[in-house]
């Protein structure tokens, strides 16, 4: 029998039993569809997070005194001298020292308790923050330790509502500051905090708090993140007299991190999650495959007479085997295709819906995942089609014809 005839025969059997074929495919549609959906949601979400991180952290490096995160208090290991020394490195640029002011901000009856950053204009560049109106902190502000402030978008809105805050005076602790600028909104759910921040010149913060050490420091790598990190780490160990050739971070009294490292971790976590969820979805594909086998077995029993007739008119076992196998594979491939299209469509809809709430979420299609889905569907068809097909092929023509007698 020609392959074309076998395919046509299988195709006719599928069309002749539309309802049964559809039900058979349903398991595969759901199985493949959920794998594709889960993977694309995972990849889209990962892309979203990476975009967010990358948008503000172009070659960003942050340097903390160690324990800062653990104990929630400012440690004193990173000094202004460290800052000056790091400025001298050729592998980093745009170094910004930071001292936090823990005070309330007041304007009239409005009162906020934001994060107040005493820093330099480099800070804005490092996080990709853009000015909305007015001006940023200047070198003149810095030199003269002026009492001026730049407000985050949300902080300005909370204090002033619709009015322009430029030129107004706000009270921070015991001092009064003139508002010289307001930042643009960062427009991203992940980094929304940045909108609530309040900025004053570094020197002003130092004199206001009396703090000599730095809360933390930010900078950008000139080219290579790894190289810059190594340089900064080596310099600080040298300055702090720490002998740590084995690179054991617990021995250091500071920690330098690049945003790239953070992105890598995000990538790994989301990949792990994606694989995990896809595996769960894969179980439904397995169930779908068993469904196919089940219905194919019923189909073989139902068509015993047809099989017997085909054998009586000259079909070989091999012809029958191929016919049923092609039937199973066709069902899984068609079901798989519908599943892929369905999963993708649902993924796109979800990405579009999410974009409304948390900022633009790109829809990411993973081609290896699509290929894997197609191969899985094909494999399911072959794996679960072979048993019924073999059963059909081994039917004796005479038994099959006498079946109804």
């Amino acid at each position, binding site marked *: 029998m020609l392959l074309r005839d076998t395919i046509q025969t299988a195709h006719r059997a599928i069309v002749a039993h539309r309802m049964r074929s559809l039900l058979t495919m349903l398991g595969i549609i759901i199985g493949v569809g959920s794998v594709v959906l889960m993977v694309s949601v995972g990849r889209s979400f990962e892309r979203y997070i990476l975009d967010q991180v990358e948008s503000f952290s172009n070659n960003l490096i942050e340097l903390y005194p160690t324990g800062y995160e653990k104990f929630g208090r400012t440690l004193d290991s990173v000094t202004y001298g460290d800052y000056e020394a790091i400025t001298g490195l050729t592998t980093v640029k745009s170094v910004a020292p930071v001292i936090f002011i823990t005070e309330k901000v007041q304007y009239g009856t409005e009162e906020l308790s934001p994060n107040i950053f005493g820093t330099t204009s480099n800070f804005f560049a490092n996080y990709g923050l853009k000015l909305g109106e007015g001006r940023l902190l200047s070198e003149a502000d810095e030199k003269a330790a002026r009492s001026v402030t730049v407000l985050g978008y949300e902080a300005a809105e909370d204090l002033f509502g619709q009015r322009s805050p430029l030129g107004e005076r706000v009270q921070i602790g015991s001092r009064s500051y003139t508002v010289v600028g307001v930042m643009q909104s960062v427009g991203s759910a992940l980094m929304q905090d940045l909108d609530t921040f309040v900025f004053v010149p570094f020197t002003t913060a130092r004199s206001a708090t009396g703090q000599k050490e730095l809360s933390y420091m930010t900078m950008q790598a000139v080219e290579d993140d790894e190289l810059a990190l190594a340089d900064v780490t080596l310099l600080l160990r040298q300055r702090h007299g720490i002998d740590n050739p084995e690179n054991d971070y617990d021995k250091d009294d500071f920690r330098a991190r690049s945003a790239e490292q953070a992105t890598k971790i995000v990538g790994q976590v989301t990949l792990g999650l994606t694989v995990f969820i896809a595996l769960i979805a894969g179980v439904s594909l397995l169930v779908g495959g068993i469904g196919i086998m089940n219905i194919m077995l019923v189909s073989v029993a139902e068509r015993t007479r047809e099989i017997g*007739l085909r054998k*009586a008119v000259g079909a*070989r076992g091999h012809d029958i085997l191929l016919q049923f196998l092609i039937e199973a594979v066709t069902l899984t491939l068609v079901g798989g295709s519908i599943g892929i299209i369905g999963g993708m469509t649902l993924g796109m809809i979800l990405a579009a819906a999410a974009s409304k709430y948390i900022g633009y979420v790109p829809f990411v299609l993973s081609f290896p995942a699509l290929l894997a889905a197609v191969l899985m569907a094909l494999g399911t068809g072959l794996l679960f089609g072979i048993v019924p097909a073999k059963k059909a092929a081994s039917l004796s023509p005479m038994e099959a014809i006498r079946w109804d007698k």
Partner: protein
Amino acid sequence: MAKQNPPLIETVDLCKSYFNDGMETPVLFDIDLTIREGEFISIMGPSGSGKSTLMHILGFLDTPTSGSYLFRGQKTRVLHDDELARIRATRVSFVFQAFNLLPRTTVLDNVILPLLYHPTIPASERTERGMKAIEQVGLTERATYFTNQLSGGQQQRTAIARSLVTEPDVIFADEPTGNLDSASGIQVMEVLQNLHSKQGRTIVLVTHEKTTAEYAERVIHILDGRIATDTRDFKRNHAKNVKHLK
């Protein structure tokens, strides 16, 4: 006239038993039978006599337990499954009591079904051959009908057309009128008789109805798995011939 033709089917001491749970149930005993090309034979017998089993063996649907079966002079017991399938595709064909047509399929597609499995007839000739076979049973106008739109007699004529399409050496008809009213039955038998008388086709008819059996030139009675009577007594001569050959 048929006597002069070479033998198409020869069986010697052919036996068939079925085995169920180690229990042997013999069905056919020492069948010696010769059918020559161009003969129209009826095999008669009550149900359970073994006549259908004999037809299944002669038609390569089943294999004998012992004895020999020569088809066109060739021993058949050494054939593999695929070779048996090839003989079914090219040399023999069947008409069944229950028609065994494919549902939701047209008359033409049913008739050309055996051609899908034919090793030498090219795909391009299928429709032409199919229509020719349909013409021979007088169903040309119904060629595009679905088989479930046909009467019982028309369905059986479709099955006969299907049995003609490969131009086989012999057509086996198993109770072809069993599911039909008498008028349709007569129509079907006339079609078969015409195929024999006008085209010289070899036909082996299995039936338990005397009126149906009488369409044939030669009637063999099977009783309890043995040939009881043969209207043309070949048996003795045949046995001698076989001894000579050996």
